[in-house]
């Protein structure tokens, strides 16, 4: 807890040192986010499919908010793209429409589809390639922690996905 307090204090001190208009967004000290353990991942991609089902009503990995990539033939190297719910959320920072905001209840950054203009500034800003413009809805789409019961974490058979910051 001490680190968090220190971090909060640090954020506030930075905030104080910045010009007034840049501190309109809330300072997020402890968002909840999913974390992925490469060593445990079995590349079954259940998390990807269940995410797509939860958010699009279809089993469409191409529309999921978490991606697992695996090279099946040469070394079975697995990589994952998923949202860290960054405290300083570059996606929210980059959004000209202020469509991405931190939700205190879910403790995650959520996209307001009404405000989103699908400009993809957030896509470019995200260092984790974890936000996309959905080809069907044509709005930015990212991990919303399923509003509470996080499906990808629940379905993961090897516990490679966990929730951090709960």
């Amino acid at each position, binding site marked *: 807890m001490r680190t968090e307090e220190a971090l909060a204090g640090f954020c506030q001190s930075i905030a104080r040192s910045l010009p007034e208009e840049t501190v309109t967004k809330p300072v997020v000290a402890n968002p909840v986010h999913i974390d992925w353990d490469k060593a445990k991942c079995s590349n079954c991609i259940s998390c990807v499919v269940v995410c797509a*089902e939860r958010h699009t009503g279809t089993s*469409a990995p191409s529309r999921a908010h978490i991606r697992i990539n695996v090279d099946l*033939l*040469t070394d079975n190297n697995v990589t994952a793209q998923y949202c860290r719910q960054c405290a300083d959320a570059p996606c929210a920072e980059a959004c000209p429409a202020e469509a991405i905001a931190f939700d205190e209840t879910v403790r995650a950054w959520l996209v307001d589809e009404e405000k989103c203009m699908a400009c993809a500034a957030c896509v470019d800003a995200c260092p984790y390639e974890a936000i996309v413009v959905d080809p069907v809805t044509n709005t930015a789409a990212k991990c919303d922690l399923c509003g509470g019961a996080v499906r990808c974490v*629940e379905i993961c058979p090897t516990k490679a996905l966990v929730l951090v910051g709960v």
Partner: protein
Amino acid sequence: MAKKTGGWAGKLLRVDLSTGKIWTEPSVEYGRQYIGGRGIGARIAWDEIPAGVKPFDPENRLIVSAGPLTGTSAPNSGRATVCTLSPQAYPCEWFSYSSIGNYWGPTLKYAGYDAIVVQGASDRPVYLWVENDKTRLRDARELWGKGTFETQERLAAEHGPDVRTLAIGQAGENCNRIAIIATGTASAAGQGGFGAVMGAKRLKAIAVRGTGGIPIADPEAFSECTRQIAKEMHAPSGCPKWSTLDPDLKREFGQRFVACSQGCVNPICRLSRYYINVPGVVYPNRKYTGMVVCESSLLGGAPGTYYDWNVGFEGGFELAQISQDYGINHWELGLGMAPWLRKCYREGLLKDFDGAAVDLNSAHWWDSLFRKIVFRQGSGAALAEGCVRAARILGVGEELIPEFFTAWGFAGHWDGHGDKINIIVFPYWLVTALQWAMGTRDPMASGHGYAQNIMNWSPMFSPDGGLGWETIADVAANVYGTRQAAHPTSGYEAKAIPAVWHGHRSIIKDSVTVDDQAYPRIYSNKTADHFARAENGMPGPSFEYHMFRLATGMEISEVEFEGMAERVFNLERAVQIRNWDRSRAVDEMVIPHFSAIENWVNPYIGKGVGLDRDKFSKLMDEYYVLRGWDVATGRPTVAKLKELGLADVAEELTKRGLIKETFEVSETSKV
């Protein structure tokens, strides 16, 4: 408002290699009648493979189908089923099936298809390239002669790393009857020799990229359903034998437990392991990378068993990779051909093996065996026909064949006689015997549900004592209606019920599609009564039904769902009857194999027993009666086929004089 339909992708992709024509047809009606996968295959076989067609004829259809749950979040799913005429099947090259895992099936669905049906034959090597709705046949002369690994690598280089490919190796090209269709580094439609069907059609590969999605009829409820099932399946202590995923297992060569198939990390088996850069023994300058799963591990030998050869881990891994690359059937090699050759050699029936000794402890010997088979060199020309045919061709060791091969040209599997690694005792292999009798191949690929489930949970197999025999019988009563179906002292009593029930479950698994090792869910040590249930009370054996219902939106009862499986089972039988005159007399061909004394002893009996012909004959009567089939001929009656919505099938079989209106039950065979 029309009710939402989901699960199925909606289209069949049809390809005629003779004309180069490619077209699509709607698939949902196939799905609503025959579920998907193996069910679609059976209907197309009935409609389009007339009697007289042989596996290598252009008229033969190669049907590769996914199912309504393939590519969804259904836990332990992700497979596809290959259906076609089987070059391996003996004595008749009849219609059969084989399931294949990895990521190909889901990708096919994401591309928008439930199945691909290939007919005709190309005059030059081609591969089918499917990219969502863009499909074309492409020249494969550059790929011809390459193994399954290089073929996949080249196609990934050409079309992108997310392409999933079914490929044949040199074995399939050379029409070996034990050739597989492969994907990834360890997955295969292995049994049946289907790689040779692709070879005869000069179809080197089917490469697919799918970037779309599958609609789900009720996503909210489906998601909750798969969550419940995942929880039941993935929580610790599934099955006592295999449940431990030891984090401290050696990480040499980067060993990792990986999914065999998309969505399939089965805590029951935990059999699939991936290794990187394992040095070769036969080819020391090579390094091998890939997965080994289940029987491919056996190429290295299993010390302390009948398969006690030992080529070391590196040698066994190398052999698994080499044979997968050539595209030959691991089960045939490990459980049939090699032990048969060794026994022939030891007994002096085989003086030498093309001038050399038969030495299963030598990785070099295995490697030379593979090359002989794949390129049909020396005695390999005969062995490429499969071991059962080879014994006849070579005129060697035919009398030893029944010791390793159960029936229909396939090596033993959970039969207590031919298969010497999976421990099973009387009376449990009676159910297996019925499954083999009614089958077209080794029926265990989707028929593990009875034998393996019971033996794994039993005190004989589980290091910690399992559930105990009495508990197993109690749980089984929930499923089969009687404890006698699974009690160790029950003998011939109530064995037809589980054979029929698992026959249907096998169809369901290969049609929806889900993994054979994980379903149907029956036993558990997470519930007080040891009957598997999800947290919300959903019974284990109903998992497939609920996922099917919610994904597809079909409003049917569980009984009607099982009726769909029964429809497919009868349709497969109808194809057997029309094209190969299948009858009870053919079914009974399994009897001699099972009449030998079993490999292990039931502790309640105290000595090994073999099949009693008269008692088994009565059991077969019971089986046919339960199925509504004629007891004398072992064929469905007209009434039964009509009841199952197969009136057109009944009509054709009647016209040909192959089936009767109803059957008469003789006094002796009354159940």
